[in-house]
Structures are given as structure tokens and as C-alpha cells.
């Protein structure tokens, strides 16, 4: 069973009637590193949001990490999300919490045992290289550092899949590469990574699987792909 399994997935936004996804078929296996590319409004965001059930498919079949996203009870949604780590372009850190607290927050709200919290948070802060800044507040960090905190928060509960929506969108090229390096290491530990991006340089250099979406359809799916659009 693949980590992510989409069959005939369609998404029509009822209020506007806009077709965001049009009969999409995709399988993503455990441990893959996948870029989702395409112009703004092509359906990338919808694709990403469906994976953590921020949006529901209008029709079709969607299995994520063994959860039937379409037919699941509302009360099961948190358990789907506990197996996923989500990262956004705008970091979404809590300004009144320190680096440590921001990461620990993700463990706290799923009622993870307190004993393991300190150790797990320190471990992921090591992964993103921010152990020494654990007492800083987000406002005292650079954009790249803030994104690293967000990544630490996303992986602290050991998710099977990391989903990143334009994680380098607000960062300069050099900082972006630091972030990609972290993603690369997370991927090497066996975690599946799905990342929507506009960054041609990154996609072309990394040479990973590329899924291109245009007008809600998958127009290209290559194992070692390139960005394919003008940057």
C-alpha cells in the first residue's frame, strides 16, 4: 500500500464552481521525495491541503498513511494528522512562545508523555541545528531559523509524511538550501516528503520525482524530473 493513494480525485469548490482538481491519479510510496509544481492557481495548494484533510475531495478515492480520507469520521481526523507533519510558507509559529515551547506545543496538544518531551524536542532541535536557540522567541530569529523551528515542530511527533507548502517561498536562495538540506536528511531517515514549490533551482538541482499540475490535471509525473517552467 502506498503512503498516498489518489484515484479519480476531483475537487470542485461549491461556492465558486471552480474545478481545482480534475480526475487526479497519484501513488506516492513510502520514503519518496516528491515535488509538486505548477503555476499559481493550478491546483497545487488544493492537492496539498487534501493530504491533511483541510479540503475534502468532491469525489474519488484518497488514502493517506492508511487513512481513508474521504470516508473517515470527523473524530478520526486528528489521528490522520498525527501521522503527518505540515509546514507552511509563513512558518506559523506562536510569537509568545519560545523555540522550545513552540516545538513542545505539538507534543503537548496530542498529550504526549511528559518524560519524552524534553528529549524529543532537543533531538529535533539538533536535527534543524537550533539547539542553542531554544530560549529565543520567533521575533529574535531570522526567516530561515523560524522555518527550521516550524520543521522541528512538524517532525517532533515522528510523522510518516512531511507535507510542505512552499516552505522556501519567503527565503533567500542560500537559506533555502539550508532548509532543503534538512528535508533531505529527514527523507533519508525514511520519511516521505511532499513539497509544493515554485523554486526552479531547487527542483532542478535535487532531481527527485516531480508532479506537475496544470488546470487541475496532472500533466507530468517524472521520477527524476525538472521544474519545466520558466522561473
Amino acid at each position, binding site marked *: 500500500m502506498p503512503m498516498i493513494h489518489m484515484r479519480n480525485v476531483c475537487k470542485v469548490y461549491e461556492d465558486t464552481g471552480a474545478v481545482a482538481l480534475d480526475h487526479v491519479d497519484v501513488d506516492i510510496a513510502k520514503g519518496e521525495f516528491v515535488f509538486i509544481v505548477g503555476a499559481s492557481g493550478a491546483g497545487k495548494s488544493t492537492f496539498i491541503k487534501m493530504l491533511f484533510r483541510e479540503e475534502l475531495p468532491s469525489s474519488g478515492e484518497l488514502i493517506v498513511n492508511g487513512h481513508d480520507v474521504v470516508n473517515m469520521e470527523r473524530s478520526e481526523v486528528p489521528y490522520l494528522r498525527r501521522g503527518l507533519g505540515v509546514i507552511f510558507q509563513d512558518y506559523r509559529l506562536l510569537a509568545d512562545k519560545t523555540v522550545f515551547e513552540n516545538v513542545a506545543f505539538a507534543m503537548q*496538544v496530542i498529550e504526549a508523555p511528559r518524560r519524552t518531551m524534553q528529549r524529543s524536542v532537543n533531538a529535533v532541535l539538533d536535527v534543524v541545528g537550533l539547539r542553542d536557540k531554544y530560549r529565543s522567541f520567533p521575533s529574535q530569529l531570522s526567516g530561515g531559523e523560524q522555518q527550521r523551528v516550524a520543521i522541528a515542530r512538524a517532525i517532533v511527533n515522528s510523522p510518516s509524511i512531511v507535507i510542505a507548502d512552499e516552505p522556501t517561498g519567503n527565503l533567500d536562495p542560500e537559506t533555502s538550501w539550508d532548509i532543503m538540506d534538512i528535508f533531505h536528511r529527514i527523507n533519508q531517515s525514511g520519511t516521505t516528503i511532499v513539497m509544493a514549490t515554485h523554486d526552479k533551482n531547487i527542483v532542478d538541482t535535487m532531481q527527485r520525482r516531480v508532479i506537475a499540475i496544470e488546470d487541475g490535471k496532472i500533466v507530468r509525473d517524472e521520477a527524476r524530473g525538472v521544474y519545466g517552467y520558466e522561473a
Partner: protein
Amino acid sequence: MKLRTIEYFLQEVWRSLRRNNWMTFASVGTVAVSLFVLGVFLILVMNMNRMAGMLESQVQISVYLQDGLKEGRREMLQDEIEHMQGIESVKFVDRDEAKTRLAERLGDQQYLLDALGDKNPLPDAFEVTVKQPDMVETAAKSISQFEGVEEAKYGQDVVEHLFDITRLMRVFGLLLMVLLAGATLFIISNTIRLTVFARRKEIAIMKYVGATDWFIRWPFLLEGIVMGCLGGLLAALALRSFYGAMTAKIYDTLAFFPLLPQYPFMNYVTIGILLAGMFIGAVGSGVSLKRFLKV
């Protein structure tokens, strides 16, 4: 639920109550005022009910007997009354029992009885119950003519008046209650809405990392309950001193007025008011969560 989680919830509630301090103050204040007014009505209605109930049980005719009546004559008298038309029952109440009853009625004012020492100024009596209320008057008149009867008393019309007033108070109180409850709900739900708004980023993150709906809801619900409870506490404290002052004032002028004794009555009122506050708080924040917290 884990202890650690409860600790977290309480921290969140405390943080949020402080962050919205003015709204918190307004909410607690509104709850307090509303529950105080509610409590005043409750106290008045309960006391009037008691009074009416007391007088109503006196729709029975109290037949007081002359002092020193022989037992034989007393039994004959009882027999005579029992055989009158329209009489349901005749019960003999000796003076000792009458004194015990008076002691019950006096409530907080036992000292009035203590002043008598061992003396008992009360007469022996019959409690005569008639079959229909409209027979009270004629029956009382006839009975008072019997030999050995000192006096025959009844209190029907007072009761009627009292019931009218109680009914009016109940309706008015209920109406006021509905209005106040509405206002209270509104202000609590508004405060919770502000909290939800202030914490929307946190809520979003909680959802993304897989917090359950109830984990997200609980702090808000608790916040409402705490506000309601605080308001209830203020109201209850105010009501206790209100009732204390009221009873003191009334006893000053009307010594035998049958008020409900302060304890345990006010303890029940306190518990009731606290529960009502918590309930309103929970419902108020529930309303807000339903509308503004899309989990």
C-alpha cells in the same frame, strides 16, 4: 484526561482571563448582577410559598379549646364535630405538640420561645379539615358555638391573596430571568469569541498537529464556566448578606413572620446560584464555539 493536560487547560484559562481582563470583568459582573436579581426573586418566591403553604394548611379550621376541659367532654366535642356535614377529619393537637410546631415555625427566632421557659401558653386544639373550601366559613361559625370551644379560626382569603402575589412574582421573575439569562449568555459568548479570535493561530496549529476537537474546546468551555462560577460566587455572597439583612430587618418589626431560616436555606441558594452561573457560562461559551470555532 491526563493531569498534565488539565494543568495546561487551567494555564490557558488563566492566561486568557487576564488577556481579556476588561471583557472578563464585564462578563463576571453581568453574571453576578443577573444571578443576584434571580436569587432575590428566588428568595422572595420561596418565602411566599412557605407562607402561603402555611396559611393554606390553616384552611383547616383551628379550633382552640377552653383551658381545663375534661377529657370526656373533649372526646364528645370531637365526636360532635366529626358528625357535622362536610367535615373531612378532626385531629386533636395537644398543647405540647402545638409548642413543638411553633418552635419549628419560629426558625431563627427560637429565643422568643426560650423566653417562656417551661411555660406553655398554647391551648389544646382540634385541627378540623373540611371537604370543600367554601364550607370553611359556616363550619367555623357553628363550631365556635359549641360548648368548650374558645375560638375557631381559619385563613382562607389571606391565602388567596398571597397565592395571587406569588403567582405574579413567579411570572415576573421568570420573565426577568429569561431576559437576564439572554444578556448574560450574549456577553459570555462574546468574551469567548474574543478569546477564540485571539487564539486563532494557536487553534490552527493545534489542528494541524492533530489535537482532538475536545482538546481544543475544553479551555474555552472552562473559561466560560470559570467566569460563570466567579459571577455566581459574587452573587451568592451578595445574596447571603442581603438575606441576612432582610431577615434582621423583618424580625425587628414583625417578630413572628414565618421566614425561611437562613441555614440551610441560603446554602441551597448558594449552591443553586453557583451551578446556574457555571451552566450559563458553559452554554455561553458553547454558543460561541459552535459559531466561531470550526475544528
